């Protein structure tokens, strides 16, 4: 037991030291992140309260809907926990740099395994906790249950997290055992991404919004059966939902002791089974994961051809950097596989527009279509920012510990940063125009709106990409284990905030002039000279904001990178 605590202690001490010993800027960061996190939780709580009150007010089926929503929330969290546990277990149990030291210590394999499962449980469940607690508290606020509900909330969710975590760890152990050692990491990461893509597409294509529209179903029986679809009595989420719902409906939990015992006994069994399997599989798998990595580079000729074409117009130094980036991107399975996520995102994005019930709206169709097209610029901008947070923001940090090569080369950092900018701006521009033009065609907007939104999003791309490179250079992280961790840090968060503000400013500046021009077209009236002045000034200001979003972050990023030590 002592050894187990000692193995967990470094993580606790590391966290404590990070909190207490961080310098002024570090503390500020913690405060900002904490404040924003609290605001985010408050937002989820208020939103959930509103949704629950609305659902509660639906006659006859209000409570049924709320019960079903609880099941769906629990099932979603459970699935996320399993997927997240698979990924974090891989890192904590097999890939962490300190594992060599742990395995060389005079402690049993089981102790190391259990200590790492504690890490995995903490790493995989904290995000779900942030999203989940406000939702469950909203249920408590709206239904006013007995205080014992909050106790159940705590221990039942913990039991559910333990079950999900151990399922994830078990899957990881089996995969590491089955697949060839050199490919284990890549295969697991690829499978995880494919699972997320499949879950995402499945969830969206099921069209959950139809559940709040009973007219979409032919019969009441069909509707009720659709409501019950994801709930199976064999799932731990069902037992948790039964317990919590019983207490929300006024019970004190005694009626659901069976579900509670079932949940906890399953959690306990999961722990015992995993430790039993770990005795046989874990060390064998760890040893395999330490073996030599892949030796041969696949598809080198095709890659050479692509790189040759892509870098032909560039000078040798930039061509070298961009060629290297392309090679690393396509050879690293953790990087290119994220294009699958991107593809799923684009498919769902377009699908959402194709199923919009525009004809049922009480607003005039042409007005609604163009209004949606206008707002779509903001939405598309936000989607592009999310993509840039993953690929563009991390572009500088992607050099990793090999950044010294760039620093000692006779390539100026200014050229280096602008080279990265050029590399990303073209594909992002193509994607932006594709999203905008495709959705505009689905919405059947006017030619004026088509031109305006294409030009606006095109110009915004230059700013979104520059913000990504600039903020990424301002907050680089070269000592990461996995590049996707960089995007989820403080800098990535800040980039999303600044980029959203930029998009919001452009949209607000264009909203007034677009409304005037559109309404003049609809009414057949003439735009007055004063209105023209307003239109010119607004569009001019939008252009100025775009220009500032390109040059300002690049300058800040360059200055910061020049002083980086």
């Amino acid at each position, binding site marked *: 037991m002592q050894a187990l605590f000692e193995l967990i202690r470094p993580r606790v001490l590391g966290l404590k030291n990070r909190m207490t010993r961080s310098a002024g800027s570090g503390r500020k960061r913690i405060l900002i992140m904490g404040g924003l996190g609290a605001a985010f939780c408050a937002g989820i709580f208020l939103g959930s309260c509103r949704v629950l009150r609305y659902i509660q007010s639906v006659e006859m089926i209000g409570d049924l809907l709320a019960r079903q929503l609880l099941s769906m929330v629990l099932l979603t969290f459970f699935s996320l926990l399993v997927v997240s546990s698979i990924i974090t277990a891989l890192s904590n149990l097999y890939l962490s740099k300190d594992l060599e030291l742990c395995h060389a210590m005079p402690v049993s394999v089981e102790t190391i395994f259990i200590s790492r499962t504690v890490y995995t449980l903490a790493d995989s469940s904290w995000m779900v906790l942030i999203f989940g607690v406000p939702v469950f508290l909203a249920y408590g606020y709206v239904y006013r249950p007995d205080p014992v509900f909050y106790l159940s909330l705590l221990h039942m969710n913990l039991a559910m997290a333990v079950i999900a975590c151990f399922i994830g760890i078990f899957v990881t152990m089996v995969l590491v055992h089955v697949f060839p050692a050199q490919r284990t990491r890549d295969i697991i990461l690829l499978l995880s991404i494919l699972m997320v893509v499949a879950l995402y597409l499945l969830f969206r294509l099921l069209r959950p919004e139809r559940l709040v529209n009973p007219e979409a179903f032919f019969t009441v029986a069909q509707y009720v059966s659709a409501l019950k679809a994801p709930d199976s009595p064999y799932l731990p989420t069902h037992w948790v939902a039964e317990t919590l719902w019983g207490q929300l409906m006024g019970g004190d939990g005694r009626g659901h002791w069976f579900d509670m015992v079932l949940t906890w006994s399953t959690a306990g069994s999961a722990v015992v089974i995993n430790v039993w399997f770990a005795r046989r599989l874990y060390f064998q798998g760890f040893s395999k994961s330490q073996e*030599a*990595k*892949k*030796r*041969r*580079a696949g598809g*080198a000729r095709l890659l050479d051809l692509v790189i040759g074409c892509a870098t032909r117009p560039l*000078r*040798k*130094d930039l*061509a*070298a*950097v961009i*060629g*290297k980036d392309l*090679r*690393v991107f396509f*050879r*690293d399975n953790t990087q290119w596989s994220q294009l699958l996520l991107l593809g799923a995102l684009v498919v769902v994005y377009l699908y959402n527009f194709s199923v919009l019930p525009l004809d049922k709206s009480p607003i005039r169709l042409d007005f609604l279509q163009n209004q949606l097209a206008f707002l779509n610029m903001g939405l598309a901008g936000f989607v592009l920012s999310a993509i840039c947070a993953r690929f563009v923001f991390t572009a500088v940090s992607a050099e*990793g*510990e*090999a950044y*010294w*090569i*760039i*620093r*000692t*080369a*006779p*390539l*100026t950092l200014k050229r280096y940063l602008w080279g990265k900018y050029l590399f990303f701006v073209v594909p992002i521009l193509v994607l932006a125009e594709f999203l905008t033009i495709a959705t505009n065609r689905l919405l059947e907007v006017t030619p004026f709106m088509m031109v305006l939104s294409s030009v606006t999003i095109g110009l915004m791309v230059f700013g979104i990409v520059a913000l990504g490179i600039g903020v990424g250079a301002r907050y680089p992280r070269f000592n990461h284990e996995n590049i996707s961790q960089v995007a989820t840090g403080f800098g990535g968060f800040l980039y999303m905030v600044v980029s959203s503000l930029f998009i919001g400013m452009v949209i607000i500046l264009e909203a007034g002039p677009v409304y005037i021009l559109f309404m003049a077209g609809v009414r057949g009236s003439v735009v007055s000279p004063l209105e023209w002045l307003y239109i010119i000034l607004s569009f001019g200001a939008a252009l100025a904001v775009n220009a500032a979003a390109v040059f300002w972050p690049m300058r800040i990023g360059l200055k910061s990178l*020049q*002083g980086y*030590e």
Partner: protein
Amino acid sequence: MIQLINLTKQYRQITAVDHLHLTVRKGARLAFLGPNGAGKTTTIKMMAGVLRPTAGRIIINGHDLAVSPAAVKQCIGFIPDRPYMYEKLTGLEFLHFVAGLYGLDRTSLLQRRMEELLSLFELEQWKDELIESYSHGMKQRLVMCAALVHQPKVLIVDEPMVGLDPKGARLVKDLFREQASKGTTLFMSTHSLEVAEEVCEEIAIIQAGRIIASGTPEELRKQAGIDGKLEDVFLRLTQEVGIAGPV
């Protein structure tokens, strides 16, 4: 060829390099010695352009690093103590990447030079393998190939023998001597006094960020008043300063 003038580096309250003055003439081989935390790696990183000095100047091949960093970097080859590289490139691709950064044309001459270097460092049969499959010593040898690919006038080396087997170490020592005979200036930091004496004709000892002694091994022996091993000379000199403080 290399001039460090009043070079200073401060990390908050700690002065890692303290008004350091040092000159290395063209074609000379200088070993930069010092105890742990003396400021060797900080000095070398400033010379390579990885760290910015708090004060002072670095002049290499007639160019001031602060004024013309690209011109300085064009003429130096840097070999760091830890060979971090792009693991998803093959050895040959990495050399082409570095050559590109230095603006070298992809000529048959360059190709031949790369082949020669890979052969010299016994990496020829590994050139098309991903770097992630290389051992530490192989990575160290590849970094050396990369540092030499553009035929630098100055070689700045931090702990060159880490991870090398005896054969590799012998190869590197011979190579450094050969490079110096062709006019390349060598600035090498090392913990190994044996390597310092074997490879270099001049030695500078740094402690607490300051040069406490410099000259040929014989001059250092005289300075320490010991006519024995360089190890004893080093210990005496660093101990004296450790007690009395830097001079």
